[in-house]
């Protein structure tokens, strides 16, 4: 074989909030850590978030997403973590090697342990016309606006009134687009009220109980037809962009390839690798964290990342059992706090169903 092979203690796949926190925890206890990420920037989804985050101060609440990312990256670098960007992990073989497509070519890494923190991917819904140019994922719109400085359109309709739909709506307004409405198929708004308040005070109408029937346009989106599921009224929005914020699903292909058992949990976004409270995925040296282990929030991802980093460090003998147990207990407490309240309970229950299964 002419592919270079490299050995390392811990490889973390994904430099988002979960991956960076995992790396920091492990590196601080003396474990050599390599973080691999396919993007040209570290921070995962954080670097396209220009809004201030909720959560507790520990998770950088009050800071904007990209600032939290910058802080985490700095922490990693201080701890001696080797962050490699532009490096897609294209395979995780059952024998334990990662195949990496990096700037210098394809190579293999054989780590003692791996944290899979690959995040989530956007879901979509299909309807006649959904393939028209101008229709895109809300995350795509966010990338376009906040990273590349280009609007997805002048008149934008948003599908989905969860946090992502609300946040992206606000960010589009901020950048100068008109948001002609937010349509939501279910009968309520599932995002935080504060996010909702912010778009409402910009005059964005919300349409709960409305389903997209079709999208129209010749060479690109011109209008979206929407049906009121209760009243039966059908309306047409003139729009040159439709952003779909209809949920995320864990992106854990590498775990599946490695041989982890995949389970389905609706509350956590769909199929995800089974794991325990220590974020162990059931196979020696394989850990998962963050959205890849069930879609939640950035603050949860950070704590799960820490948990996986602690567990990996302990199992590699770099952290004493008692110390690891104490740190894990603290993380567990914070996770429990984050999963309290009307938005967290269902996620908590779904996570518990994994731990107990």
């Amino acid at each position, binding site marked *: *074989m002419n592919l270079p092979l490299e050995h390392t203690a811990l490889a973390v796949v994904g430099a988002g909030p979960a991956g960076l926190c995992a790396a920091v925890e492990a590196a601080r206890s003396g474990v050599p850590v390599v973080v691999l990420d396919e993007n040209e920037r570290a921070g995962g989804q954080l670097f396209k978030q220009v809004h201030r985050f909720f959560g507790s101060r520990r998770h950088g609440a009050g800071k904007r997403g990209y600032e939290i990312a910058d802080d985490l990256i700095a922490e990693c670098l201080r701890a001696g973590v080797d962050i490699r960007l532009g490096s897609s992990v294209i395979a995780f073989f059952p024998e334990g090697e990662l195949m990496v497509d990096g700037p210098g070519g394809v190579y293999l890494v054989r780590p003692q342990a791996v944290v899979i923190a690959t995040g989530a991917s956007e879901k979509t819904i299909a309807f006649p016309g959904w393939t028209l140019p101008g229709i895109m994922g809300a995350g795509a719109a966010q990338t376009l606006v906040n990273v590349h400085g280009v609007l997805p359109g002048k008149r934008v309709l948003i599908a989905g009134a969860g946090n992502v739909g609300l946040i992206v709506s606000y960010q589009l307004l901020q950048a100068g687009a008109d948001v002609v409405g937010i349509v939501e198929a279910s009968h309520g708004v599932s995002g935080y009220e504060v996010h909702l308040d912010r778009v409402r005070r910009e005059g964005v109408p919300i349409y709960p109980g409305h389903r997209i029937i079709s999208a129209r346009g010749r060479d690109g989106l011109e209008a979206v037809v929407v049906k009121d599921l209760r009243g039966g009224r059908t309306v047409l929005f003139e729009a040159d962009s439709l952003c779909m914020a209809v949920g995320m699903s864990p992106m854990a292909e590498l775990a599946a390839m490695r041989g982890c058992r995949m389970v389905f949990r609706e509350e956590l976004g769909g199929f995800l690798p089974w794991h325990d409270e220590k974020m162990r995925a059931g196979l020696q040296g394989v850990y998962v964290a963050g959205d890849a282990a069930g879609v939640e929030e950035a603050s949860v991802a950070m704590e799960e990342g820490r948990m996986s980093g602690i567990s990996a460090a302990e199992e590699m003998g770099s952290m004493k059992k008692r110390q690891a147990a104490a740190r894990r207990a603290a993380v567990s407490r914070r996770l429990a706090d984050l999963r309290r309240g009307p938005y967290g309970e269902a996620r908590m229950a779904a996570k518990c169903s994994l731990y107990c299964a």
Partner: protein
Amino acid sequence: MIGAATAYYLCKEGAEVMIVEAEDLASGASGACDGFISLQTKQLGSHLDLARESAQLFPAIAEDLEVDIEYNRCGGLMLARNAEQLKEIRARAKKLKAAGLQVEVLTPSDLKERLPDVSKDIKGASYCEDDAQVNPYKLTLGMAQKAQEMGVTILKGCKVENIVVTNNRVREVNTTAGSIHSRRVICAAGTGSNQIGKMIIVDIPIMPQRGQILVTEARERLLDAIVSGAEYLGTKANIAGLMPADEEASKLGLGFTAEQTASGNILLGSTREFAGFDDGTTPEAINAIAKNAIGFLPWIKDLDVIRSFAGLRPYSPDGLPILGTVKGVKGFFMATGHAGDGICLAAITGRLISELVLDGETSMDIEPFSLYRFK
């Protein structure tokens, strides 16, 4: 594939057939292979005879099935990388021709017409007009569907647990979905054949042989023929002069194959490895297949690989199928051990086994494929 083909031919003759499938259609070797119907890579003699008969059946099958099986008589190329290989290929071409196959030997400049932008290192090739390609999944689906239309029941997700033999005759098949009374059982279980044989205390010497394949992005038509390298034949038929040069490639059983499917993807093969029932792809093989392919078709390096897969082929000790009956157990038939030739040989296997089951004799001599040739 073999099961579906056999059922297809059986019910064409009016037989009442039930297929017991542990997983789903084409979930074994036929779900993880390319669509080569390659004649020039067959061993001279009965193996080639079988393949030729089979190849002739495909146009009619394509006509008969409702599913488009993407059958394409595109011809096949076998490329020689050095003088030694070319000599071997030339000698084989002569023999294949004598056996009635349409084969010609191409000089590098002739080859350029059939395969533009082939590597300058290629010293020549043989071209077989009779070689063709087909979509193996669609073929399996088409045959299974046609069979179902004619009354075949397919029990999917149903495992055979035991075969009841009394007075030296098959009586009953116990499955996870209950017992099936039948006086005739055909074992077309591919890599599971050994396990099935044990149920009637017969050793069917089949082991899984892994073949790995890379899939590229879809492109416009770039390959007009199915293509293989001489080492492919070497590792397949154990021909000393055609073995891979380096140790690693030999260990993997590496041989170059390339086929562009109807969907535009190029399938690049392949390996022949013994790794038990592990159907995973490996970094060694992915790297070796890629490197090897570039040696034949340098331009292919710029294509994106979007997937790899591996299939477990049912491999008998001499790489040839096991067809026929077993001694001492009436009503038990074998149609297995096709290794990498399952698709190519499916049609003829189905027809011959159906003849054997219904008439007790076959229109072609299948003695060379008897289980007892190994002893």
